[in-house]
């Protein structure tokens, strides 16, 4: 029998709700009554008890489950250190921002900055993610420093911007400026990679399994099959359920080095069917 902590939205949210500052990994220790007494900030209304917004039930099973449309909820699971959070539906901006461990699963779409500056753990989004998924705060030089962000839909612009470490994998398309100013880390795109990927990247890898046009500041180096790509793709197929094909594993990759306007130690690996 499930002993999840369940938070079911009582009524559709009419204003944004800010969850930042709430360490969800500690919630299961509080119990349902304790969680219901916690207060979150609602735009235009100030601090409101969670119990007024959600029907809170359940126990201490280590997993928190949210039900309802949370598109107006911001920073859910921010700073998560352990445990599991499931969002059954959509969620707003900055879900899982700066999380360091544990797992967050979103069955719907996520807003701006999903997994922003992720440092560890696993954030999985079954739908689409907005701009700057796995990226850095505006003006910050460093984005993700670890962990994995898996998006089974598509993302907006600047996915994986300023990554330092970690893995972002997108089953669909990514918008303009993916991997912008990457310091290291890996971005895997199964669909179409939008314009100017990897611009100003110092290091870092973009594995483009679909159409991609490297920026003018990248230069073609060679066609080969990097073994590490096989390891990453097998990991994504076997443990994350992403649509890796036999041809992805055995095919050739065109390596473009760049950004040559920067350090030039980065790469775009464009899979070719031949």
């Amino acid at each position: 029998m499930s002993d999840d902590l369940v938070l079911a939205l009582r009524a559709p949210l009419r204003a944004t709700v800010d969850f930042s500052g709430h360490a969800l990994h500690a919630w299961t220790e509080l119990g349902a009554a304790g969680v219901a007494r916690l207060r979150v900030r609602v735009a235009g209304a100030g601090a409101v008890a969670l119990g007024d917004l959600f029907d809170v039930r359940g126990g201490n099973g280590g997993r928190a489950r949210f039900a309802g449309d949370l598109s107006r909820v911001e920073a859910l699971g921010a700073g998560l250190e352990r445990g599991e959070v499931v969002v059954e539906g959509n969620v707003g901006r900055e879900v899982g921002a700066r999380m360091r461990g544990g797992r967050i699963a979103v069955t719907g779409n996520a807003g701006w900055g999903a997994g922003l500056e992720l440092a560890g753990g696993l954030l999985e989004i079954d739908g689409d993610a907005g701009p700057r998924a796995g990226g850095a705060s505006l003006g910050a030089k460093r984005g993700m420093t670890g962990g994995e962000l898996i998006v089974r839909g598509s993302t907006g612009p600047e996915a994986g911007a300023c990554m330092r470490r970690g893995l972002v994998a997108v089953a669909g398309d990514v918008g303009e400026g993916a991997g912008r100013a990457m310091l290291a880390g890996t971005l895997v795109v199964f669909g179409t990679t939008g314009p100017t990927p990897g611009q100003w990247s110092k290091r870092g890898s973009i594995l483009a399994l679909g159409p991609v046009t490297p920026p003018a500041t990248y230069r073609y180096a060679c066609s080969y099959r990097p073994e590490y790509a096989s390891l990453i793709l097998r990991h994504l197929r076997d443990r994350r359920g992403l649509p890796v094909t036999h041809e992805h594993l055995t095919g050739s990759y065109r390596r473009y080095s760049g950004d040559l306007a920067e350090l030039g130690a980065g790469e775009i690996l464009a899979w070719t069917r031949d």
Partner: protein
Amino acid sequence: MNLRGVLIEDTFAEAFTMRAARILITGATPRWVTAAALKLTGFATSVIGCKCEAGIERELGPTETPDGRPGVSVLFMTMSKDDMPKRLIERVGQTVLTCPTTACFDGLPDAPDRVGVGSALRYFGDGFQASKVIAGERFWRIPVMEGEFLVQEKFGVLKAVGGGNFLILARSAEAALAAAEAGVDAMAGMTGVFLPFPGGVVRSGSKVGSRRSKTMIASTNDAFCPTLRVVTKSDLPDGVNSVLEIVINGIDAPAIARAMRAGIDAACREGVVAISAGNYGGKLGPHHFHLRKIMAEGAPA
């Protein structure tokens, strides 16, 4: 005890605690996997002269390797944990890194002790190397003329057992060789063990020290040399004209015991007089593999 007319002597093999790493080598085809593995495990018969002992544990199919290519599992042993990184770095660096198409992975991911291998070999990349962390493990990509060499940063090291053995005492050299080959074939591919000597067989079994030199740490095992039967204190029964030894190293004592049982059983054939074992009176090695107990129970000694 008698097995198909072959006497199983009431003695034991004496083995030592060593440190082991398991190295997984993959490549584009079995040809190149084997080429790398044979070089890696070459000149690695005994720590006495080679500083390490190594052998191919078994071949791996594509479903068993991290990158889905053909591979082999190599067991690699040294006398101490401190010796391990130096030997691994020099051998992997000279034999696997150099071999076309290969990659090199840790085969003991659960071992708590880890030694750096890729973390040292990366410097061959002269600043062009790059690393990737995949599922919590760091790998180094070292650019080479062919493309890239991929090697795991750290390899697990476990306490293991070296020096399990048995001796085949036969009426002729031909019979000893045939029995040894049968024993080796029976142990081939068994998980957790390897046979470090050429073809799995050693003809020059040794005793500790020397009758004449104080500096030699090992010399010929004169008690089992047929040509010395009348000039030394011989341990050979009548009718024995040739002796071969099979040395078995393993991840743990049960793995060695299982292999010894299979090997001895296969070696008990026509022309073999007795099966014995090498020991030092039980004073040197903590692992004692009693032949009769192994053959009777199949249990670790």
